[in-house]
């Protein structure tokens, strides 16, 4: 039995905000990430999909230790990262890397592309001589589809798609085993999105990475994921393998997300809207609904949903869902 390289258990990150004045302090708690658990195997891609306030970015940062979680464990190759001291964690960063959402903002505007990619090398291998660093940097640039002769150019001289490639090269230069991509294509044009997604797929196959691909809608994620986790307000609603999630989602929120993806087909687009799949707006993270967090927007809710919080439980096909009505709902997507 293969062992997972990453196992996240009950991860919780809480942000506090203090409002009010001297006489009447109000502390409000926002559980941005609320008890998330999942496993990831080498060579596997987990797609993580959530809208705003879902906590997906916070989740990414908590896994990498950029934010300290309040509760829970992050087991990387059997070691609990949350318990490591700063220096040990810093050493682990060789194996855990991240690609950010905004390709331009994640690059220091005053450093050349070559320096940006080489910085992790300077950091962990200070004794590497300049020629070796140069060679490796150019190799990385070629691997991500950039011309090595651009090595002395600055971020503002590249397009955003190319900046994202620089970011990917930087993330991979240390040969990490886990790559978290935090909405890597959201800020890119549609035609460039496809290029970067294909690039990540190729790189993953070539390097055997474990990949977590975070996105705000289900469409892009499908092409690269093996399994998909759907998050709503910090909680996992469904974790299913790709084949079943898109054909037969188990959770009403997943269903709503699928139906929300715009189809480039006028006839189908018009039909998809006729059913009522979602009501209202997302509640404020500080005022969570009681019971199931999704219940006030769910077209399938029953009395029980207002009181009991559904736990994430396993269904027969091996997929997980957090819904009281998972057994009796049939949300199969009809195909042409």
């Amino acid at each position, binding site marked *: 039995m293969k062992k997972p390289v990453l196992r996240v258990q009950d991860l919780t990150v809480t942000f506090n905000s203090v409002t009010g004045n001297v006489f009447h302090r109000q502390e409000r708690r926002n559980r941005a990430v609320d008890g998330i658990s999942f496993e990831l195997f080498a060579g596997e891609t987990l797609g993580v999909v959530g*809208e*705003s306030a879902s906590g997906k970015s916070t989740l990414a940062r908590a896994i990498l230790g950029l934010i300290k979680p309040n509760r829970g464990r992050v087991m990387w190759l059997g070691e609990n990262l949350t318990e490591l001291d700063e220096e040990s964690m810093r050493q682990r960063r060789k194996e855990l890397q991240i690609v950010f959402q905004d390709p331009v903002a994640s690059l220091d505007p005053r450093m050349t592309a070559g320096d940006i990619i080489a910085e992790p090398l300077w950091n962990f291998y200070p004794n590497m001589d300049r020629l070796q660093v140069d060679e490796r940097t150019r190799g990385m640039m070629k691997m991500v589809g950039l011309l090595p002769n651009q090595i002395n150019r600055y971020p503002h001289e590249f*397009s*955003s*798609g*190319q900046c994202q490639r620089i970011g990917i090269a930087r993330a991979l230069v240390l040969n990490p085993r886990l790559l978290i991509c935090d909405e890597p294509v959201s800020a890119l*044009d*549609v*035609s*460039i*999105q*496809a*290029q970067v*997604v*294909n690039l990540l797929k190729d790189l993953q196959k070539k390097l055997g990475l474990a990949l977590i691909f975070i996105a*705000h*809608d*289900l*469409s*892009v994620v*499908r*092409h690269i994921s093996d399994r998909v986790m759907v998050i709503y307000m910090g909680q996992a609603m469904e974790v299913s393998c790709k084949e079943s999630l*898109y*054909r037969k989602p188990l959770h009403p929120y997943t269903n*709503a*997300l*699928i*139906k*929300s*993806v*715009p*189809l*480039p*087909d*006028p006839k*189908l*687009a*018009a039909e998809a*809207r006729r059913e009522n799949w*979602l009501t*209202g*707006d*997302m509640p404020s993270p500080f005022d969570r609904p009681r019971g199931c967090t999704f219940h006030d927007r769910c077209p399938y809710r029953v009395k029980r949903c207002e009181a009991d919080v559904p736990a994430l439980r396993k269904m027969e096909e091996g997929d997980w869902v957090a819904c009281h009505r998972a057994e009796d709902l049939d949300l199969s*997507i009809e*195909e*042409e």
Partner: protein
Amino acid sequence: MALLDVRGLEVEFDTPEGVVRAVTGLNFSLEPGEALAIVGESGSGKSQMMMAIMGLLAENGRARGSARFQGEELMGMKAAELNRIRGSKIAMIFQDPMTSLNPYLNIETQMVEVLRHHQGMKRSEARAHAVEMLNAVRIPDAEERIRQYPHEYSGGMQQRVMIAMGLLCEPDLLIADEPTTALDVTVQAQIMQLMRELSEKTRMSLIMITHDLAVVAEVADRIMVMYAGEVVETGTADQIFYAPCHPYTQGLLASVPRLDRLDTDDLHAIPGNPPNLLELPDGCRFRERCSQASAACLERPPVWETEDGRSSRCVLRPEGAVMREKAAGAAAEEAE
């Protein structure tokens, strides 16, 4: 008479690196009650075109050409005249509603200001009309919420308020520049549905500017595809989505991740990057990325038109089309 008729529009910007030709030789017209979608990636000139028509170009921008709105020439119109039209006859909403709303004024004040300025309404009358508009865009509890401040609304609701503000004076034309790009996908779906209903109910014309072809599938009557400052294809929604002529449109459609076709995992990508507007290639601007390019593409391609309103700027001739604009060096012949 066409509501809006644009002929020969050219927009240029003076930058330290040279003259950027953002829009070249643009022609289109819009009928009353029609919904036109202008689709293009970054650098296509789609936003700059509307800015030029509305007199909102940046200081280093210059525009030439003609844009007649209800017979009146908008290009070169004095600011005072333009202000009369902007807001009352033509309304614009932009991408990020948070930056379009004044954070220091409550919604009521901002909406009432528009009505009193443009329509000369009394305060009580204006308030009633504003509440009615908020109800039309489905803001819950409009009567109370109108007194709230923008930050108390979610992103989706803010955008709905922007739409409501745009509709206050019952304009003949609503221009929406990437209205849903900054919003969650479920909210995006709701907003698009709303815009479709509103445009069907009133006889308002709609121009939607976006980089996401799929988003306009349910709203648009006609679609205009732009690339590197030129229109490369126009047609009805059915024509563009089901039988696109231009290779760029075809590539764009193929790059959109679709959830209704689950058979393949591969994502089609258009290779290469959009051209640098400072150094546009000779001949067809798309040829360096075009899978169907040939030697003929080194000349400026002709514009074909069909009887049912289709047009395409390409060496490839659509069925039943006649040449509207000659290619460079070729005589203007009627070709069958």
